[in-house]
């Protein structure tokens, strides 16, 4: 039995929240992870996956990047038995819309409840709480933690409550009520209101927070709140249970021979070369963290597409790699695809250069948006490459999921 192969979409338009999925799956023992970008999705690179995760970010930018080919491949992937998990922006993506390019992704009959024909006006308090959505406006009545409760369609005998944070994700009404696995049921002391309680209540309460839509052999999971957020363990478990429930075992078990072949094709770095690569990564991540720490003191944010980015988001990318470096340092051999080390070295040093550039631009009151766009693109490239190195090295040649199950059985 193999661990399900999970692809975390890390291409254009995604925000840092896919990194939360990396943490979640690693902690749960799902180490068979891949990090497809838009080119990979467009070029049939997801057909071997069991699960495709599309996390938060800018729905329009994700749709634009994936394009028609990406949309068709995602649909085909689900129809043939794949599980799509969309969180926040990833949940909006497959819903029906007449707006381009979202109309390329009309896969599920689920309606958004936080949609308004009119610009919401004075009751909406910040620029983060409303965005044009074609002819309509998506508005976000609250942020932070909300209370959710599972429905009888998930488990008729045992319904349970848990909290999860909402950062612009949808409330949902499903064409078939049995698709709804969890509803929004209440606010928490941590909920931050951008509208009146009345509007927030009307928009969200009793509506779908987690919806599962079947499509031929597979299904779409749409998560309004970020159930993958690292501070919400019960919500995290909901996702893990869903993956186990839906996949059971991998659809495409990898034969031992294939594994050996793939392993043989990898580059192995040991001794001085491995140390040098890790030192190089450490050096550049440190340089980048130091500038980013400095940027966090400055009153700056960038509107990239429909999404507002702050320096704190840069930190999330950097920390996700930084905290894993020491584990790589304990490995005698680094296992990676040919060319990957050069890609990592180049991207990491470029990020340092661009971060130092943006700090100077801000200090001199110059426009820094273009540099910010470059930085977030580079962060995607670096983190994808880094996780390929990390998971390739840490778990190559063994399958901890399999080992875990075996130990449970014995």
């Amino acid at each position, binding site marked *: 039995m193999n661990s399900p192969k999970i692809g975390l979409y890390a291409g254009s338009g995604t925000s840092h929240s896919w990194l939360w999925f990396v943490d979640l799956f690693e902690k749960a023992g799902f180490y068979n992870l891949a990090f497809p970008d838009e080119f990979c999705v467009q070029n049939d690179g997801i057909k071997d996956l069991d699960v495709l995760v599309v996390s938060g970010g800018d729905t329009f930018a994700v749709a634009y990047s994936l394009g028609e080919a990406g949309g068709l491949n995602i649909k085909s992937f689900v129809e043939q038995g794949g599980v799509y998990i969309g969180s926040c922006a990833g949940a909006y993506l497959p819903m029906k819309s007449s707006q381009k390019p979202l109309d390329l992704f009309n896969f599920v009959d689920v309606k958004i409840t936080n949609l308004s024909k009119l610009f919401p006006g004075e009751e909406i308090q910040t620029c983060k709480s409303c965005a044009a959505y074609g002819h309509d406006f998506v508005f976000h009545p609250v942020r932070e933690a909300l209370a959710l409760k599972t429905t009888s369609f998930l488990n008729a005998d045992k319904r349970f409550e848990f909290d999860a944070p909402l950062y612009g994700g949808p409330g949902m009404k499903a064409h078939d009520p049995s698709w709804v696995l969890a509803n929004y049921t209440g606010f928490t002391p941590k909920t931050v209101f951008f509208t009146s309680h009345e509007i927030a209540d009307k928009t969200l309460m009793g509506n779908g927070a987690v919806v599962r839509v079947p499509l031929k052999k597979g299904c779409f999971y749409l998560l309004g709140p970020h159930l993958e957020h690292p501070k919400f363990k019960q919500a995290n478990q909901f996702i893990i249970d869903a993956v186990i429930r839906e996949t059971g075992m991998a659809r495409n078990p990898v034969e031992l021979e294939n594994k050996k072949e793939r392993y043989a094709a990898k580059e192995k770095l040991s001794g001085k070369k491995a140390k040098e690569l890790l030192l190089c990564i450490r050096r550049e991540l*440190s*340089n980048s*963290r*130091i*500038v980013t720490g*400095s*940027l966090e003191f400055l009153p700056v944010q960038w509107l990239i597409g429909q999404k507002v980015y702050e320096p704190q988001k840069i930190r999330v990318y950097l920390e996700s790699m930084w905290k894993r470096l020491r584990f790589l340092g304990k490995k005698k051999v680094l296992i990676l695809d040919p060319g990957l080390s050069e890609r990592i070295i180049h991207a990491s040093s470029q990020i340092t250069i661009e971060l*130092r550039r943006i*700090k100077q631009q801000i200090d001199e009151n110059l426009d820094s948006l273009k540099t910010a766009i470059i930085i977030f693109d580079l962060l995607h490239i670096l983190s994808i490459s880094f996780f390929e190195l990390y998971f390739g090295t840490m778990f190559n040649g063994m399958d901890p999921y399999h080992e875990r199950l075996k130990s449970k059985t014995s």
Partner: protein
Amino acid sequence: MEYLSTDKILIIDLSTAEVEEEELDESLVEEKIGGIGITKYLYNKYVDDDPIVIGTGLLTGTTYPASAAGQITAKSPVTGKVCHCPVIYKTGVEIKYSGFDYIVVKGSSPSPVYLWIHDGVADISDAADVWGKDVWESTDELRKFVGDDLLQTMMIGPAGENGSDYAQVCYNHWNSPDRFGFGKLFGAKNLKGFAFRGMGLIEVAEPEDYVERSLEILKEVKENSFLEKKGLAQILTALGEEGVEEWIEPVTHRHSADYFTPYASNTALFLDEDPGLLEESKKDEPGVLVSDIYALLGFKNLGLSADDAGRALKACAKYGIDPFAVAELGGKTTLEEIKGSFDSISGEVAIPARGLFTPWCPTGPLFNDFGLEGEDEIMAWWERRQAISMIFGIQPLFALMCPELTEENMLELASLGTDLELTQETLDAVIDYIFG
């Protein structure tokens, strides 16, 4: 060494550009505790390579009151002895946060370099862009390059590059306690200096007990009435110097403290800005931060106005020269003459007792009498107190003020923090080793 430590000693050979790391063995801490106990050990270990050893105290950068200091141990080109200079402001703690407890610099570089120490990484970097520049320009340039205004530096200026006996290693923009000409040593090695920054954490063996005891000690410390005072001038008044407070008051802007130190012993003088300004100055160089009470007094005694004394101190900080030596040995009495005298300073500054510690610190207790009597007893106490503060990483001026910072509670906190059994006998043996 798992606790109160980064567990790393850095060995840099400037002549070959090789960088090595060693683990800090627990047994070495059990034997030498830390700070100058270990910097001296490392100095002796690498003595054939004419090393400069940078270190931190065992308590440096923690919640123990005034745990602000690092140390430089090297052979003074002025005295010919192995001496120890405290690293103050926020620079001492940044050494440890940047990922190394100790740094040994061996040999000489064929061309000017600076060492960029960050998050456990040590880069030998080309100093071509800053060599020839003064301390302020160099620090500003490195902060701009690295993109962080909190970068902590130890730099030399033209004095160190030109081989002046009284060249100082300056910390950030400011003069330091260096009376040993360590700046000349840096210059001879083609070493412009260090830039430190780290975002790491220090592990503590018993964190809750450690913090609780630290806060108890801090509470006792705060009962001292001298903590109502601030700045350099009031220290000089306590030492019996009259008229300093009135003299300096017109240019005094504020007082600031070193890391977690209850007494604000550094005084900022505004020379080209209104000293009464209550917001951040928009001027590039509004004034100068002064930590050297005897240099300040020296310029006063030459008959300078407080404004001119501030300008002389600023010029010394930029040039990277010991302002006390300039005031004491320069023989000049006007600001312009003083500024022109930096390259011709010669003679000797008296270093008290065994000559190990800097007379930047007054050679006796401050604000409290510590129950001492007689010159010999005071001098013996002072020398031991300096050693203690530099073993544990305590701000050395504050150590002279505060009886509540005892050897017993430093040992207690060191044991709580490390889970090692560190005793008074060990401490006495370390002090013998340092004095020996």
